[in-house]
């Protein structure tokens, strides 16, 4: 089964690293396949930034998303650009303070998190992306938490691992409670593991 995920926001929010951690978790630590592509905005720096991640139990051909199962947006621009294209029953994760959600089909599951502020509270705004990853991890079951943690370890410099782990856990905790709050049904498209370990 193929799961399509997009992370989008602006430069400096660590969009790519977030997607990379999720992809790595899927491809290396859960034995599946993952294809991650970046789309830079018009400009290499500072502009819009977006990453598309496909995860599947079989080799992936077409490298881009067509209709996202999961959309993570960290800017209003990104919301406006990408929300219309996502799956109507998909999962939408937004940065609470930066994105105002509107005009969505009611079937979309929306979760928001003040990731930037939480990251700032942790002392480093830059870890907002890892907060988001933790949040995503708690909200979906496609990848095990262990795989995420392995991927995180393999992705960040040693000196910053501790901070990143705390960011992940912070997001994860928010995710769990949000999940409870919203009573996300177990049977949504995104709630089952996409494949099992071979």
């Amino acid at each position, binding site marked *: 089964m193929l799961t399509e995920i997009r992370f989008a926001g602006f430069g400096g929010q660590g969009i790519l690293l977030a997607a990379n951690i999720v992809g790595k978790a899927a491809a290396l630590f859960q034995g599946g396949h993952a294809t991650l592509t970046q789309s830079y905005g018009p400009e290499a720096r*500072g502009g819009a930034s977006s990453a598309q991640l496909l995860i599947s139990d079989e080799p992936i051909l077409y490298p881009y998303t067509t209709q996202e199962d999961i959309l993570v947006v960290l800017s209003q621009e990104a919301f406006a650009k990408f929300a219309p294209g996502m799956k109507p029953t998909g999962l939408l994760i937004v940065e609470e303070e930066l994105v105002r959600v509107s005009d969505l089909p009611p079937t979309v599951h929306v979760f928001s998190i003040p990731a930037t502020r939480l990251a700032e509270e942790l002392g480093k705004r830059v870890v907002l992306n890892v907060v988001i990853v933790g949040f995503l991890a708690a909200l979906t079951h496609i990848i095990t938490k262990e795989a995420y943690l392995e991927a995180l370890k393999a992705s960040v410099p040693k000196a910053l691992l501790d901070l990143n782990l705390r960011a992940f856990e912070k997001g994860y905790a928010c995710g769990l409670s949000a999940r409870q709050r919203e009573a996300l049904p177990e049977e949504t498209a995104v709630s089952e593991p996409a494949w099992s370990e071979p």
Partner: protein
Amino acid sequence: MSDNLMLENAALQVEEALPESMNPVEPFLRSERIPHIWCPGCGIGTTVNCFARAVMDSKLDPNKIAVVSGIGCSGRVAGYVNLDSFHTTHGRAIPFATGLKLANPELTVVVYSGDGDLASIGGNHLIHAARRNLDIKVICVNNLIYAMTGGQSAATTPESCTTATSPYGTFEPTLNLPHLLEAAGATFIARWTTYHVMQLAKTMKEALLHKGFSFIEIISPCPTLFQRRNQMGDGLETMKFYKEHGKTKHGADTASLDMTKSGDIIIGKFVEKKDRPEYIDHMREYYTQKLGRPFEYQVKTC
């Protein structure tokens, strides 16, 4: 979300009260293209403010000013200024400007680009244009890095800096641009930082009015790719660093202007020569003499 913004922002009310006020830089911008692509705390926009003021102060007709950029973050300036403007190829702004100026000497031709563009890939054109003393004004935003491509080391990167292509730190010697330019023959050479906005605007104005090849180096922060990677803080911290370490020495020996990672930055106007004839002037005189009749300049044919 930013609901409280309106309340906090008293200025907006003022704007409503006095609608005739306008940002003085606005007429020089292609406003429909703002916000621009530059990062928070990037110095390039600041230099554009200075340039706009310099153009105003120079009293030159903006319709007769052309801006030519190469490729890079700094090279995007051509795209934002509301003047005839050319975004050329990487490194080739100066020869493009050379053709432009030679076709129509009435134009004030300004080359606005980055250090990598002008002094690495474009280095050959830089020295030969300086040698010719063609009346082109080169504004070099030196952020000590190749920014647009993601922060690779440049010929201008000081020693021991970490960049995308020098993960162990740079060990290559750093190019001293004013020194090179003086040896090549530029007749107007200055350096400021983005902190020194008033001085910069004044120098830009002088360069606009100088007849001959002019070169202004502007040390500018690239917080995203240079300062942060080198634990030098953000744009603001860099500006404070410039404030503290910028030492004005007009007429300083250009050989003394080497840049280091954290040392003083010597700034000022170093060279302003009137003795070398400008290229086109000299050409006209020369041909007039050789042809035995006034050389009628008629390159612009259509």
